[in-house]
C-alpha cells in the first residue's frame, strides 16, 4: 500500500535530515549501513552495488549513461536520494563528480564478503533455555501491540477505560492522534488523525509512533542518532533470539523499556543479567523500510459480501472496535463478528475524518485468505457505494471568492471575464447582469486589470 511507503519513507527522510556529522557517525555501525542500503529505491541500490568497488569519483555524465534515456526521472530520484543520505558525496572537479561515502563503502564491502556482520553479543547458554518459543513470542507481541491500540480506542469509546500507560498516551498526543489533555483528570479524545490511524496496517502505525518517538527523543536527552541507529539495527536481530541488555548504553536501556511497551521487544531478567528478545514486529519494521510492496504476512479475517454484510472472524476486542468505527455491529459470536456497512455508520466514519478509500483498503488488507485470492477482494458494489457515499458528502465545495459587478460597459466586462478565465480562476459569470465571481487569491490581479481596463477604455474608444 502506498501509505506504508509514505510513512516509512518519511522515516528515512528523518534520517536524511540528521546533520551530516551525525549521519556519518551512523555509518560507523555495520547494521545501519545495511538498513540504509535496503531502504534505498531499487535503482539506487543497483548504483551502490556498482560503485562499491570504485575508488575514484565518477562523473555524473558517465553515470547517466547507466540509465535508459526514458528512465531519467527515476535516475534523478535515485541520485537525489543517495546524495541526501550521504551515500555518495559530491566532489568538485571540472565537472560534477560523485564518490561513495568511504565508511559506507567499507561496511558494505565487508557485508558482501562475510555475508552479514559481526553478531551482537549474545547471552550465555543458561539464558537460552528460558527464551520463549516463537509462537509465545508472537502472541506476546500481538497482545502488547493490541493493548497499545486499545488504549487509543478506549479514548474514543465513552465506556470504562482500561489501564493506561502514560508514556503511550503521551506519544499518541504528540503525534496528534489524541487531543492534548488540558486538565489533569480530563481524558483525551480521539482526533480525526487518530481514526485514520486505526485503519492503517500495523507497520505504518508502528512507523508513525516510532517516528514521533525519535523526534521527541532529543527533549528527553537521548541522542537521536544513537536511537535511529539502534532501531535500524533491531531489524537485523534474529527474532526469538536473546540479546544482552548490559552492552547497551544507559540511554538505550531506557529506550528498551519503552520499546517493550510497544511490543517490539520482550524484556526478561535473570539472576545477574537481563536480556531482550526482538519480536516479529521489530523485524517487520525494517522489512517495510525498503520501498517494495508491503509484505505483511498477517492472516486476514474479514469477508465482505455484496449485500454489505461484513463477517469478521476475530475474537479480538481491538478489531471489533475498529470495525465499529464504520459498521453497525449486528451480532457477536465467540469467534465471529457480523456487521453491516450502512449509510449511517459509514457517514459517521466519514464524518470523523476517515476516507472511503481507507475503509476499502482496510477491508482489502484484512481479507480472509479464502477471499483474498479473488479479484476484487471487496465486491465492486460495496466499494463503489462507499465512494458514492463519500462524494455525497462533498457535493458542496467551499471556495473563498470575490464578487464583481457594476461594470460600465459590456466590452470591459467581457475583457475581464476573458482575463479571469485565462488565469483559471473564473467560478461564475452572468453576462446579462454583468456579474462574475473569481477566486479570492486572484483578487489583486483582477483589481489591477479592471482598473487598467476602465482607465484605458476611453482612450481606446477614440
Amino acid at each position, binding site marked *: 500500500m502506498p501509505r506504508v511507503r509514505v510513512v516509512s519513507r518519511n522515516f528515512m527522510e528523518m534520517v536524511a535530515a540528521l546533520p551530516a556529522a551525525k549521519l556519518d557517525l551512523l555509518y560507523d555501525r555495520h547494521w545501519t549501513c*545495511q538498513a540504509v*542500503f*535496503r531502504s534505498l529505491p*531499487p*535503482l539506487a*541500490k*543497483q548504483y551502490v*552495488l*556498482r560503485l*562499491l*568497488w570504485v575508488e575514484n569519483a565518477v562523473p555524473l555524465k558517465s553515470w547517466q*549513461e*547507466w*540509465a*535508459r534515456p526514458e*528512465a531519467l526521472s*527515476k*535516475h534523478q530520484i535515485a541520485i537525489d536520494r543517495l546524495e541526501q543520505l550521504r551515500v555518495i558525496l559530491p566532489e568538485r572537479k571540472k565537472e560534477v563528480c560523485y564518490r561513495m561515502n568511504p565508511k559506507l563503502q567499507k561496511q*558494505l564491502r565487508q*557485508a*558482501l*564478503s*562475510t*555475508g*552479514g556482520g559481526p*553478531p551482537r553479543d*549474545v547471552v550465555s*547458554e543458561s539464558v*537460552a533455555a528460558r*527464551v520463549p*518459543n*516463537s*509462537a509465545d513470542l508472537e502472541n506476546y507481541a500481538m497482545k502488547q501491540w493490541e493493548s497499545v491500540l486499545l488504549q487509543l480506542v478506549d479514548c474514543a469509546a465513552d465506556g470504562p477505560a482500561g489501564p493506561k500507560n502514560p508514556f503511550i498516551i503521551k506519544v499518541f498526543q504528540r503525534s496528534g492522534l489524541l487531543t492534548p489533555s488540558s486538565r489533569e483528570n480530563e481524558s483525551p479524545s480521539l482526533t480525526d488523525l487518530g481514526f485514520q490511524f486505526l485503519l492503517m496496517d500495523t507497520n505504518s502505525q508502528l512507523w508513525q509512533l516510532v517516528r514521533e518517538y525519535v523526534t521527541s527523543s532529543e527533549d528527553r536527552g537521548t541522542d537521536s542518532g544513537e536511537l535511529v541507529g539502534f532501531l535500524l539495527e533491531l*531489524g537485523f536481530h*534474529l*527474532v*526469538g*533470539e536473546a540479546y544482552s541488555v548490559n552492552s547497551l548504553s544507559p540511554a538505550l536501556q531506557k529506550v528498551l523499556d519503552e520499546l517493550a511497551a510497544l511490543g517490539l521487544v520482550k524484556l526478561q531478567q535473570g539472576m545477574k543479567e537481563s536480556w531482550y528478545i526482538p519480536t516479529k514486529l521489530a523485524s517487520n519494521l*525494517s*522489512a517495510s*523500510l*525498503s*520501498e*517494495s*510492496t508491503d*509484505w505483511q*504476512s498477517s492472516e486476514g479475517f474479514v469477508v465482505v459480501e455484496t449485500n454489505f454484510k461484513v463477517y469478521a472472524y476475530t475474537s479480538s476486542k481491538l478489531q471489533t472496535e475498529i470495525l465499529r468505527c464504520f459498521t453497525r455491529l449486528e451480532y457477536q459470536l465467540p469467534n465471529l463478528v457480523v456487521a453491516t456497512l450502512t449509510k449511517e455508520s459509514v457517514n459517521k466514519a466519514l464524518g470523523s475524518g476517515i476516507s472511503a478509500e481507507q475503509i476499502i483498503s482496510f477491508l482489502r488488507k484484512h481479507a480472509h485468505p479464502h477471499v*483474498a*485470492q479473488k479479484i476484487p477482494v471487496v465486491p465492486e458494489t460495496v466499494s463503489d457505494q462507499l465512494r458514492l457515499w463519500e462524494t455525497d458528502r462533498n457535493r458542496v465545495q467551499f471556495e473563498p471568492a470575490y464578487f464583481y459587478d457594476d461594470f460600465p460597459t459590456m466590452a470591459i466586462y467581457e475583457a475581464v471575464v476573458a482575463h479571469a478565465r485565462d488565469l483559471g480562476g473564473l467560478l461564475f459569470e452572468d453576462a446579462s447582469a454583468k456579474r462574475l465571481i473569481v477566486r479570492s487569491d486572484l483578487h489583486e490581479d483582477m483589481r489591477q486589470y479592471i482598473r487598467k481596463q476602465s482607465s484605458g477604455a476611453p482612450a481606446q474608444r477614440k
Partner: protein
Amino acid sequence: MARNPTDDVSQVVLLLDVNPFFWGAEAASGGRSNGSGGLAFDQYFQHALMFVNGILLLNHTNRIVIIATGSSTCAFLYDSTATDGINGSSVTSKANKKTQVSRTELITKSMQEFVSKEEEASKESSQIQYSNISGSLSMALCYIQRVLRGPLPHPQARILCLQGSPDAPYQYISVMNSIFSAQRNGVVIDACVVGSQHSAFLQQATHITGGIYMKPPQPDGLFEYLMMVFTTDLFSRQFLQLPRPVGVDFRASCFCHKKTIDMGFVCSVCLSIFCKHHQTCSTCGATFSRSNSTTVTGMKRKAPGS
C-alpha cells in the same frame, strides 16, 4: 515476460557449474587452454558466494537458492529461506545461531559434500564430460513452481546459470523443454558463460525468456560482471542499460544423433528435427511420402558447405 514487476523482491536460483572435468582441465592448463583467463575454481566459488551475499543484502525479502550442476548429478546446496525463515520451533535456537553465523561455511560444506558425491558418481560413467544443465534447470523450475504455488505475494523469479563447460548436444531436447516451461511461467533465465565457447543453449534460453546473456571477456573479473549486470532485479531492468545480445545461435540439434545442424529435415506432423531423411518419424511415427523427400534432398544439396 508476462508480468511487469512492480517491486524489486526477487527469488534467484543460482546454477553453479561445478563440473570436475571442466574445472580439472582448467586447473591443469593454468586456465590457458580453455581461454577462461585464469579463473580458478576457488576464485569462481568465492565470487559466486559474494554474489549470493549481495542478493540477500539487496532486500530483506530476497531469497536465493543455489543448485550445483555436476557432470552426472545436481543438488541443492543452499536455500536462504530454510535457514533464515525457521525460528525456534523445530530447530533449537542454539543450532539456529550457528547456521546464521556462517552462511559461507554452510555453502562451502554442502559444496564439499556434493563434490565427493559427484566423484563417486563420475567413477561409474567417466566418458561424460558435459554438465547436467538440463537437470539443474528442471530442479530450479520445480523449486520456483513451488514458490509460485505458495502464499501470495510472489517474488520475481529468475535463474542465473554460471556455466563453464560446453553444451551437451544430447541434452538438447530436455534443455529446450525447460526453457519453454520457464517462458510459460514467466521465469527469466540469465546466463553468464565463463568457459571458452559460447553456449547456444543458454543464448536461446535468455533470448526466449528475456534474460541477459553474457560471456565475460575477462572471466577472472567475474565478480564485477556479476555485480554490474546480474544483481539487477527485474524491476530495475526496466530502467537500466544492460548488455544486449550480440547474436543468438539458433541452430537446433537433430533428434537422431544429437548433432548441431545448420539445415535438416523437419517432421511435418510433430516438428521433430533430423539430420538425414527417414522413412518414418521416430518421434510420432508419421510416414513420409517419396515425392516430398526428393524436393528436400534437393534443397539439402544446395546448402553451402554444410
